[in-house]
């Protein structure tokens, strides 16, 4: 029906244009791209879209920010149910399992093949590609904005306790925090314990130590995966964090309390934080005059064989139910984003890292990582490529993981407020998380992850 309608419209437009004897320049095909970034980052995306539109005359991408990742997914679902979905949508890392079972997408690799683009998928950093690929390695979506967690440390403060290097093990961190406290620093380290910090505290930690978050290889091998963070090294980690918090070595910093941890670090209030490489630019722009700081890979416990850290961020999904012309446009757009030159533009203007080896090499050869504001960001690539991804460190593929993260925040708050012991809190996290996973499995009876 719509095809017939569109056909009529095209015919009418054609007749009209010949009637008016307009020069034969076809209108560009328009398609929608919804994304979840806001503020500065949204402006960079808008520029990216403009660059794409200026680079050719056949397609025009209309880019719309939906405010944040959650809203983007919610609005896309609502639009999809009403048949008004965008052609391309940005979905955050933990929405991957939900997308894979939705049946609402067109596989990215197939789309590119159909439209004659040759993408070398082995060019993607394996740590990034595996997170978004199926268990068989097919790319259903395109990695877009990617980051990983790093440790930010204040060089001036560490110099006071006679250190010129960032601590590499959690044992060293414990000793250094104590020394910083003794040297008169009121807040040696800042953390926050909401749903958002599940990423650096639980997910990255587990990957680096090759510890599972859930059975079935973190969910890659089936919807019947269940959490098991209450019996891995993570228990030890939370116990240590709590111990340091009780000793006044760690302070909780969040926006609700007045200052988030990135601000606390940039102003020199706190000396150590764990956060995304995406904050590298923010710290640089907002730091206290003359403060010396650097980034390092997240520490591991002594005697651990370090594995790759996990990618964070989002990927681009192409949704089903669109016209061939729109798919052609979407393919051209994805190809444009895949280009190393776009990677340089994207990483320069945001804190995100390049997702392909060729993009990284192109940026290195341009001297991107030698200069002051961007120096240090290569540590993120080192962390992501520290090892070949194992069955466990390739990612997390759990349904409704947003709710599990919320549960993480809830239980961490209960632990830090002394309402429950560390083990009790993590047991509850597993119990409630499993209920969420079970519900997800029941919602998709008989379906399996691709």
């Amino acid at each position, binding site marked *: 029906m719509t095809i017939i309608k569109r056909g009529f419209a095209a015919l009418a437009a054609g007749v009209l244009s010949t009637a008016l004897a307009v020069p034969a320049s076809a209108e560009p095909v328009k398609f929608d791209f919804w994304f979840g970034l806001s503020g500065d980052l949204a402006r960079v995306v808008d520029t990216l879209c403009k660059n794409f539109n200026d680079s050719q005359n056949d397609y025009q991408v209309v880019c719309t920010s939906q405010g944040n990742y959650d809203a983007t997914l919610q609005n896309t679902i609502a639009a999809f149910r009403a048949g008004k979905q965008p052609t391309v949508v940005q979905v955050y890392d933990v929405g991957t399992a939900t997308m894979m*079972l939705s*049946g609402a997408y067109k596989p990215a690799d197939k789309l590119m093949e159909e439209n004659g683009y040759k993408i070398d998928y082995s060019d993607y950093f394996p740590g990034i590609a595996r997170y978004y690929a199926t268990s068989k390695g097919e790319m259903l979506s395109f990695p877009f904005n990617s980051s990983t967690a790093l440790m930010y440390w204040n060089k001036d403060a560490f110099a006071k306790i006679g250190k010129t290097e960032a601590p590499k093990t959690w044992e060293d961190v414990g000793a250094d925090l104590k020394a910083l406290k003794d040297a008169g620093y009121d807040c040696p380290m800042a953390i926050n314990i909401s749903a958002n910090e599940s990423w650096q505290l639980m997910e990255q930690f587990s990957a680096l130590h090759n510890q599972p978050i859930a059975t079935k290889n973190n969910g890659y091998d089936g919807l019947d995966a269940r959490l098991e963070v209450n019996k891995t090294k993570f228990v030890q980690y939370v116990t240590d964090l709590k111990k340091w918090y009780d000793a006044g070595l760690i302070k909780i910093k*969040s926006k609700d309390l*007045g200052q988030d941890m990135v601000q606390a670090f940039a102003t020199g209030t706190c000396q150590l934080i764990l956060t995304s490489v995406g904050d590298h630019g923010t710290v640089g722009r907002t730091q206290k005059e003359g403060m010396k700081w650097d980034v390092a890979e997240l520490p591991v416990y002594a005697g651990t064989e370090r594995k790759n850290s996990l990618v964070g961020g989002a990927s681009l999904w192409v949704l089903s139910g669109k016209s061939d012309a729109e798919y052609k446009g979407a393919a051209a757009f994805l190809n444009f984003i895949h280009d190393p030159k776009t990677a340089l533009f994207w990483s320069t203007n945001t804190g995100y890292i390049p997702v392909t080896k060729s993009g990284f090499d192109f940026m290195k050869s341009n001297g991107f990582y030698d200069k002051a504001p961007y120096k240090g960001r290569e540590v993120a690539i080192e962390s992501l490529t520290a090892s070949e991804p194992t069955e466990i460190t390739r990612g997390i593929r759990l349904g*409704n993981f*947003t709710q599990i993260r919320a549960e993480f925040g809830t239980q961490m708050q*209960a632990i830090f407020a002394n309402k429950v012991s560390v083990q009790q809190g993590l047991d509850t996290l597993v119990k*409630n998380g499993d209920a969420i996973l079970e*519900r997800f499995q029941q*919602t998709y009876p008989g379906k399996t992850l691709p």
Partner: protein
Amino acid sequence: MEKRVTFGRWTIGILFAVPQLLLIFTFFYWPAGQAIYWSLTLQQPWGGGNIWVGLDNFRSILANADYWNSITASMVFAGISTGLAMVIALVLAALTDRQLAGSWLYRVVLIWPYGIAAPALALAFRFILAPEAGFMAVVNQVWPGFWDPGLDGADAMASIIIAFSWKYVGYNFIFFLAAFQAIPRSLIEAAAMDGSGVIRRFWDIQFPLITPTIFFLLVINITESFQDSFGIVDIMTAGGPANATNLMVYKIYSDGFKGLDYSGAAAQSIILMLLIVALTIVQFRFIERRVHYR
């Protein structure tokens, strides 16, 4: 012959009611019916299909300790914030009604808070009550660790109660003031001439005469504290710490929209609806008896 102004056919009456009925159907019965249907099924978020599960959604919710915690939190919130908002508004309105100096000013100023959108006022209160940066930072400096809504559930609950009450004081004030001004002056003056003081006049004359307004506001405040609290919770605490402020309406939002569990959220909203209906019936049944309509 008796003359009556009636319509010959009942269909005409229906016809007049149709626009209103259509509105109610479209915006109330249809969504509510949809919610009931969803609550009895397991909905795939992307609309790929659903499975009939009967009352399973309700069973799993009611077996969940977190949900009961959420109901308790909502009750505490509703009770305290309604009490605060009504008592403060009543006192302010009584004072304004006495024509104290500058009462015209209070009359205008006290109405403003109700005009502020919940998220905006929540942002303001988040700053005022921030333990490290705002007004409470001063208090914390005198008594370190006194105020910590980031980890202490009671403090967080107090924050959202303060913000909500502050908004509804303005709303209640308008109604109370109107009620006070509707009381004939002669009654008050007569009592004054008989020698009764301000407090006595309030309890014996004004208070009994405004009970219909008090009852009306009680019903509205309790209902709104279950529903209108969403924006405040979302901005100020996001349900934390450790679910201490995870009110029912916020849990519906986070389970449904963040967690994409549409069926569970639908079942929760049915329960919330039944709870509000039950509370309202209780109020009409037991409290309205004490109300004197003129």
